[in-house]
């Protein structure tokens, strides 16, 4: 029993880095993704094409490769980042690209009539975006954002290749040392618990932002 408790404590410590990667990535990637979406939709061609290239690059290569690149290749050109910063940089840029495409689709789903109504009422493009378009976009993008966020919980385990002691790496270390599979089961329970909380949270958010819809 003591041994099990000890394992759980060790893994809770490992969860700390997992949660840190998760939250910081989310906090950075959402605004970067929104800016990228606006850039992608910009009429300034150079901006739009640059963002398009960035999205293609980030979605077109494995996150694992991007992590290795930031971790091993950047120091070769003289850019030394602390481990955690390197990981956060790769994660944020990668997830921002996915979020950007989700936001872009959300913005484009808003009917033209909403812009015209706001325009005829004298609202500026910035007011229209902030007051009329984005609040409706949030409702549309919540389900796909929820999907990506759950992916992120699990993708955090990729940092094991950077030798950081996240939840999965701690579990593996214990398994290899003690020839006991229990830590894997505990890790699964931890991931499931995080996903459960997220699913619940997004359900609440969807209900809140969807309160103006006809049914319910």
């Amino acid at each position, binding site marked *: 029993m003591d041994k099990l408790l000890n394992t759980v404590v060790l893994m809770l410590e490992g969860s700390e880095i997992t949660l840190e990667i998760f939250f910081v990535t989310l906090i950075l990637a959402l605004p970067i993704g929104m800016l990228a979406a606006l850039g992608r939709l910009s009429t300034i061609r150079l901006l739009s094409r640059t963002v398009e290239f960035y999205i293609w690059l980030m979605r077109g290569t494995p996150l694992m490769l991007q992590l290795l690149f930031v971790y091993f290749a950047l120091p070769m050109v003289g850019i030394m980042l602390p481990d955690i910063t390197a990981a956060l940089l790769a994660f944020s840029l990668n997830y921002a690209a996915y979020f950007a495409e989700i936001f872009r689709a959300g913005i484009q789903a808003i009917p033209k*009539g909403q812009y*015209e*109504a706001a*325009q005829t009422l004298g*609202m500026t493009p910035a007011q229209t975006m902030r007051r009329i378009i984005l609040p409706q976009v949030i409702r549309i993008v919540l389900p796909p954002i929820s999907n990506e966020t759950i992916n992120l919980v699990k993708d955090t385990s990729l940092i094991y290749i950077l030798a950081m002691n996240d939840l999965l790496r701690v579990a593996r270390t214990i398994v290899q040392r003690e020839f006991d599979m229990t830590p894997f089961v505990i890790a699964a329970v931890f991931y499931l618990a995080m996903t459960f909380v997220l699913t619940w949270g997004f359900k609440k958010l969807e209900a809140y932002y969807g309160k103006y819809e*006809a049914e319910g």
Partner: protein
Amino acid sequence: MGNTKQKDEIMLKMRNIHKAFGAVEVLKGIDIEVKRGEVLAIIGPSGSGKSTLLRCINRLSTIDQGSIDIKGQCLALTKPSGEVEYARPKDMRKILSCMGMVFQQFNLFPHMTVMENLLEAPMQVKKMPREEIQPLAEELLKKVGLYGKRDAYPAKLSGGQQQRVAIARALAMEPDIMLFDEPTSALDPELTGEVLKTMRELAASRMTMVVVTHEMAFAREAASHVIFMADGNIVEQAPPEIFFEHPREERTKAFLQNML
């Protein structure tokens, strides 16, 4: 005397309006003039250019040639070089702010309640404090008979109710000219009556209105002037009693026969 002058004030003047979408010319030199308190009804088959003409008035569409004056201020003119020049952004905002518009698809803001829809533009654009605009908004909602629905979201309302809210929303900005783009075309037949009633009351209150419509009864009863458009041209125009009783053009006669 001052009163007469006010009554004769020209609110909208469009001269020689041309507009093409690619190679398709949809407006082929249109002239219209609307005085204060007049209701101009624009009718015609679909594809005749009437909605495009209406959208040119408040710059939802831009013109390729011609001039537009709103209340004596120049919104757009054609320079001798043939290039169309619009008013500078700041002047343009001011000119456009005296016009309100009602759309075929209502275009209410779905994430806001009825009351919030009315308060949004006055508070954001005119920076009016809520307590200053709320009384007018309440009065407008009572006028269109939807005060009881002030806290409902648009999705809970019928099409007719939504369109009446849209009218109230435009009026909350206290425009001098109201533009209607087929306001009843998206409605079930039994719901058009309530919207037309609101529009008749608005016309009776001497609001200057330009109405693109398929409702012949409305044009006949509420309009002070009727324009029939086809293929980007004005085919015929007259006061409603003359227009509907004694149309001159064959094209008009055929159209009216189909509609009535």
